[in-house]
């Protein structure tokens, strides 16, 4: 369940994808930071694919804010896809959706870059 390391896929020179699985909690901090460092070098956008997400809590949301700050510093876009209705609502409540582009599928996210 613990996200020891998260796979990063580089789709082309401009976009890379982090495949999130299991939970996004305080325990995911290192794995998520590591994956973002690897995914974000030299691209315009990083997509978080939440298709495999089981559970995200407020600590996890805090981690996403941290990633968002890093992305903005690097003048990169942070995008998300594959969110369930429930977590999509939480993104809206927290207004994370205003800073992170939300897409239904990975293809739509890639096409937006």
């Amino acid at each position, binding site marked *: 369940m613990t996200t020891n390391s998260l796979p990063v896929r580089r789709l082309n020179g401009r976009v890379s994808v982090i495949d999130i699985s299991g*939970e996004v*909690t*305080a*325990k995911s901090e290192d794995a998520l930071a590591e994956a973002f460092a690897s995914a974000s070098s030299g691209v315009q956008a990083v997509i978080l694919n939440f298709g495999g997400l089981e*559970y995200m*809590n*407020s*600590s996890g*949301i*805090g*981690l996403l*804010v*941290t990633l*968002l*700050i890093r992305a*903005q510093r690097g003048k990169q876009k942070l995008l998300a896809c594959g969110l369930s*209705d*429930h977590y999509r*609502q*939480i993104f809206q*409540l*927290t*207004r*994370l959706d*205003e*800073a992170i582009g939300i897409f239904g599928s990975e293809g739509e996210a890639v096409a937006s870059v």
Partner: protein
Amino acid sequence: MTARLTTFWKNLWGGERAVAPTVDEPATSAPVTAILPAVDIAPNDPLLAYLHNVNGPVEIARLQMESPALAEMKATGVVICVPLVSQGELIGLINLGSRRSEQEYSSDDRKLLADLATQAAPAVRVAQLVRQQQIEAAERERVAQELRVAALIQQTLLPQSLPELDGWGIDAYYKPARAVGGDFYDFRSLPDGKLAIVIGDVTDKGVPAALVMATTRTLLRAASERLGSPGAVLERVNDLLHPDIPARMFVTCLYAVLDIQTGHLLYANAGHDLPYRAGPGGVEELRARGMPLGLLPGMGYEEKEITLSPGDTLLLYSDGLVEAHDPQRQMYGFPKLRDELADFPGGDLVDYLLTTLHNFVGPHWEQEDDVTLVTIRYDGPAHNGALTQLADFTLPSAPGNEREAMAQIAEAVASLGLSPDRLEKLKTAVAEATMNGMEHGNRYREDLPVRLQAESDGQQLWVRITDHGGGTDIPDPATPDIDLKLAGLQSPRGWGLFLIKSMVDEMNVIDDGQHHTLELVINLAEKKDTD
């Protein structure tokens, strides 16, 4: 017909005056001194065929044939017999003994007798027919009376009253196509407080079906007393019924056990029409495999289960509803039943379905088969203000245990019928509150557990999460703002309490000096709006 001739004759003239008096002895003069006994003629007696073909009086002494009736007539002193024939049918005889004067019958006598027979025959025939109709009418009335009694007895085999249970609305309708029927239904309170529900349908209708119905009902009652599970009950009844049931007859039957506290329903089906669950979540057929009762011995019955949610109605029914035809011979059918259930606005489902049936078959419908409906509506845990404890447990303060809290609370409130959306929100709120309790209240000390309680009065759900951090002032955290956080003016964290408040209808804080409790409130009445 012929065997009955003498009987009619007797009845027509009454009692012992079984035979017409001799013609030269008018009844008004001296009393009759000799009455010839009635003679029964067997249907295969050759005398019968002979008399059928003669015209007018016959002298008995001249007849020679192997006939028991003829021998009897000779022995009793019959001299002349005159067949009464109406429309080619021999309907009786006038037997006469010898004349008083001991003289032979003259040709005038014979002519008189022939005329008498010609005129008497139609009158006797009419009298016979009237008599026959009276007997048949009496017989019909006797059968009808027996059926009325049978119908009364059968009524006593059906529940005399419906179970009245807090939070449940139970209704039933039963109308046999004839005086008695093969449908039945039954309710039975089980020792563990659950409710057994049965509906069945015997092949055929009328009296044969009613007799098998009575047996099956008794076997089901006896089996349900000893065996708890629906599959075991049907298996037992099938094995008992099989050796005794008439060939080509069988019984379809659905047996269910309802937990009235939680809405959990366990059921098995012996080839009966599939029940439906209809409610805010849509219409669902409840399938479970099994052969009808009485067909083959040693059958097993699959058991299935569902949990009814508040607002759900369970429908059990017999095929008299779905196999009803409209004037154009179209059948009501399952697709229509399903559609009607999908459109069911709530309320009285029996009334609703009967209205759809009457609209379908029209005013001149002759009911084709027994119609039985049983509906079980779940209004939700008793709305009588009584609190129902749904959960009360503790968890050690260890990272990750909030997920266990989520899972246990979700299971505990399953019977309340929260929509998936509201359930997910409750789970998130419970997880966040448990994390807060473990982290801020108990400092992740494993010897300090977090306690979770859930209770409901049917209108509201309260979930309380209690830690040991009472008595300390917890400053109200700043409302998280994404812009401030991105600008570095606020910590990226600090979303917990904000999320909890957003996920539930109301959040209260209770502090007794030792314990700190977060109370989450969900209004169940709003459930339907969000579904």
